[in-house]
């Protein structure tokens, strides 16, 4: 009986060491702006999934390309059919790391600047991206904010010359997630 208590006791005590705290969301918002002075083009997706590990800093995002919403029906159609070819490439995925995760104190409320490095897999092309953002800790919840720019040409997304003045060759992507602890 005593032995069992010791075993159980040591197991309970060792738990915090083994348990890696992970945060997740299924309602991450990702929006992008690809417009120019001649035309506003932006889309928003409100159901991106993301998970990150508070110990290692490993972070992942996944988004369904068909889930981007636009102000105009035609934009959504062109986005899916001509540019992103979402029937062929239905998901975009980012896998990377928050390189300075050790600077974030998840026990203390506040906004912490972070640097994220990783690979963005979009339109069938994998490419390294790096950006800075912020993690805002409020109790058990964490909010992330980041924005970065990608060149469409890097992802083999061609813009027809007819609409060259309307679509920007570089696209700004903004990411905003409200994470909760994964239990």
């Amino acid at each position: 009986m005593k032995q069992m208590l010791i075993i159980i006791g040591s197991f309970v005590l060792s738990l915090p060491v083994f348990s890696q705290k992970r945060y997740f969301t299924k309602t991450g918002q990702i929006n992008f702006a690809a417009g120019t002075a001649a035309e506003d083009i932006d889309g928003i997706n409100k159901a991106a999934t993301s998970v990150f590990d508070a110990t290692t800093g490993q972070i992942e995002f996944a988004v369904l390309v068909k889930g981007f919403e636009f102000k105009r029906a035609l934009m959504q159609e062109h986005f899916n059919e001509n540019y992103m070819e979402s029937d062929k490439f239905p998901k975009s995925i980012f896998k990377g790391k928050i390189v300075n995760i050790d600077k974030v104190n998840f026990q203390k409320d506040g906004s912490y600047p972070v640097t994220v490095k990783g690979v963005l897999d979009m339109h069938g092309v994998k490419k390294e991206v790096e950006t800075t953002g912020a993690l805002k800790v409020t109790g058990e919840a964490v909010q992330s904010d980041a924005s970065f720019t990608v060149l469409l040409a890097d992802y083999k997304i061609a813009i027809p010359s007819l609409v060259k003045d309307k679509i920007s060759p570089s696209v700004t992507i903004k990411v905003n997630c409200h994470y909760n602890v994964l239990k």
Partner: protein
Amino acid sequence: MRSWKKIIAALLILALAGGSYGWYQYQKAPPDIRKEKGGIEITAIDLLKEFQQNETASNTKYVDKVLVVTGMVTEVQTDSSGQSTVYLQTNDLLSAVTCSFYQNDESINKVKAGSPARIKGVCTGMLSDVVLNKCSLAE
């Protein structure tokens, strides 16, 4: 001479009609799914099962289509901007059907965790969950 003028007038009208049709098409907002009739009726349990068994076939069958999904509501989340998300229970503990509602849609007030609901939306595919956007409570 008269017929020549008529042809020009006809061409002008045609160009004008074509132009305005093009402009209309170009400006057209995406359809409001709340006003769409019908939709594919399915349970959340079956929808996830189908996607897990064959994602490619399910993408063809369901993505971009209006679905009316019935299931038990496990959770309702609303953020500060008025964006609500409803999770429907499936037979898989780790996966749900995620229903992202229209922003500030009032039908969300009738959706309660622990009660069944019929939700209409557009299927966008599967991540860990099957995802629907442009959702509202079906009548």
